[in-house]
């Protein structure tokens, strides 16, 4: 018992101060929001698009990256001869609309806006989610799990992952939605009482990830259920997921800001 108390003391209080305090420091190699400089693009160059494993980059009519498809592998930056693509460290990536995930120079960045007032009254202080992995590789699942540990403690915000769709206000979906899981996802969604929301976490759940176009998958959650929040990444950093959830619930002061 004494050893237990000693260990408890030594381990200390380790829950993040964020969002009241600063966010946790990320590795300087972390790949967050990309920064594009299309004026550097050599004429007719398509090296970035050719290197992208998931066809997330277009060069016409302007250089743009679809963060919904992006694996954040940075092969594009490595392939670019002119340094027109750089990977910044901003982890705020989640969006309410699929088209808001398109990044282009000069295009306004629309971070996820809050739910409407009625939904916020219902979910703003208590959001119970059922997680459904529909072909996820256990990386997104693992970093969703992390949010419930004492370091992140999403219980602070009234957010909880619950064991049954009957207890849930919505679903958090990972994976590209495999053919073999589609029926189970649909049934789980139907078992949630309305009004309900769906959060798609990770490149697979947004657009199929590396498996986009495979006949074995359905290229994301939106193929099967209506999606209210898209959280890009492969997998998204826990901070990216938390940022998206808090913005959705209107719990970040700077809800609709743009960068």
């Amino acid at each position, binding site marked *: 018992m004494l050893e237990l108390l000693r260990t408890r003391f030594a381990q200390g209080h380790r829950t993040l101060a964020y969002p009241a305090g600063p966010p946790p420091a990320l590795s300087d190699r972390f*790949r967050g929001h990309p920064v594009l400089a299309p004026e550097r693009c050599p004429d007719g160059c398509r090296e970035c698009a050719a290197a992208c494993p998931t066809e997330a980059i277009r060069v016409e009519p302007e250089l743009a990256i679809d963060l919904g498809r992006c694996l954040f592998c940075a092969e594009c930056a490595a392939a670019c001869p002119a340094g027109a693509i750089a990977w910044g460290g901003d982890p705020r990536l989640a969006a309410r609309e699929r088209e808001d995930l398109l990044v282009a120079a000069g295009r306004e960045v629309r971070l996820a806006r809050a739910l409407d007032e009625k939904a916020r009254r219902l979910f703003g202080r208590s959001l119970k989610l059922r997680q459904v992995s529909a072909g996820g*590789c256990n*990386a997104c699942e693992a970093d969703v*799990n992390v949010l419930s540990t004492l370091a992140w403690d999403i219980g602070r915000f009234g957010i909880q992952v619950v064991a*049954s*769709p009957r207890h849930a206000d919505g679903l958090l979906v990972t994976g590209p939605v*495999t053919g073999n899981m589609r029926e*189970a996802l649909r049934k789980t969604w139907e078992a949630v009482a309305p009004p309900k929301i769906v959060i798609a976490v990770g490149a697979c759940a947004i657009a199929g990830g590396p*498996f986009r176009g495979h006949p074995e998958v359905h290229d994301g959650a939106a193929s099967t259920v209506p999606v209210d929040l898209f959280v890009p990444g492969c997998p998204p950093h826990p901070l990216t997921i938390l940022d998206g959830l808090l913005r959705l619930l209107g719990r970040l002061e700077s809800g609709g800001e743009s960068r």
Partner: protein
Amino acid sequence: MSAPPLARIRAGAAIPRAAIPELPVADLAEAVAASCEGGLRAVAYFAAAGAAGLELHAVLADDPRSELALGRAPLPGRSFPSLARRCPQLHLFEREIAEQFALVAEGHPDPAPVRCQPPLLPEPAASARAVALPGAERLYRVEGPEVHEVGVGPVHAGVIEPGHFRFQCHGERVFHLEIRLGYQHRGLERALAGGPDRRTIHYLETAAGDTTIGHATAHAEVVEALAGAPAPARGAALRAIALELERLANHTGDLGALAGDVAYLPTASFCGRIRGDFLNLSAELCGSRFGRGLARPGGSGFDLEGERAERLRSGLDRTFADARSAIELLWGSPSAMERLEATGLVPREVASQLGLVGPAARASGLDRDARRDHPAGLFRHHPVPVATADSGDVFARARVRWLEMQRSHAFVRERLAELPAGPARVAVGAHAPESLAVALVEGWRGANCHVALTDGAGRFARYKVVDPSFHNWSGLAWALRGAEISDFPLCNKSFNLSYCGHDL
């Protein structure tokens, strides 16, 4: 009768396909069965479609001699003889071969589908076959008064991948557990054929996302074997460091989850956080908590300059000290230990027959670890001591993880201090055509086996991935025999197997 000879190579090497003895299928079956009875174990047993028709391939590991035995046989008919009754470790491989190529495993005791996937055959043969959803077919059933069935999944209570578990019970007692998977099938092997291409490495990094380094390193070693050029020492060292960080993170998470399942909350809470601290060390290395972008054919996608190595070392020591104090609490709690001991028993003999790998095998007294038995890269020169236990219960599977963590910590510490000079990554040359290459990389769940067969142009004619979970799901089913249904979560966590790694 004496078994026909098989070709011998080392893991991490390639061999021309023509140099692999081609035997009639009955002779290959006899050679495989005799070898398994003689102590070898199957690391891959699969079929491939070639210009000359279907071919059956066996890759068997001879651990004491650090060799792999290879054989092949043409499959002219629509069936092949099942060895599952003689060599139970082959039972799932045979079901997979039957499912992937629309064949019959003759005499197989349980010829059920593995993933409910369409066959890997050209259209329209593939699409002509209707495929049922997993768990929808007939499952094994125990009949009798007071026998009842409990079905769980595919959607579970936790944040976890989908699978269906069907228990045949008498009261609380479990007669039989049947595990049906396939919900996670994403068409990985079908898509890998014809590669490598720009998606190949990403398929393997997400084959089992918690084993990104394990699978990506196995892929890198296969490609390097085909190119005939091993990774530079520095690149191999960085991959080995990342592999051990992956082990540290996952073992910490598992020990915390086991503590949580017996309601011992201090260890559960601390380890949940500490696991993330280990993942952050991987992010320090390559920007991704799961090691995305690090292991690449030709070495490592990221280098480690002196200052970063120092940050990594101090972070590692700090995190490991936290892990030590959190985990030692668990061993010091008699009520937690009481719950782990003698639960989910897998005797040594059973573990051997089922062909278990990784910590699950070592906890049942099987002294096998690919880092020592089939070393590649840095492990050739810097072996990691193998940790075993002999009780085969949940406690042993937990204990082995902690022993491995201590050795991984020492290994990473030493390797960071002595990083070889030179480039982290070099360009990889062309693949040898018409060849076969095998890699065995001991990830945190066990050996990840990758086998590549190239065509005349050096492209992948077939790329076989065997996640350690493929061997070990049968071990979990066995662990529940005669146990109580309430033991299931504990047993499940003690194996912590991959669904997508199995379903591919």
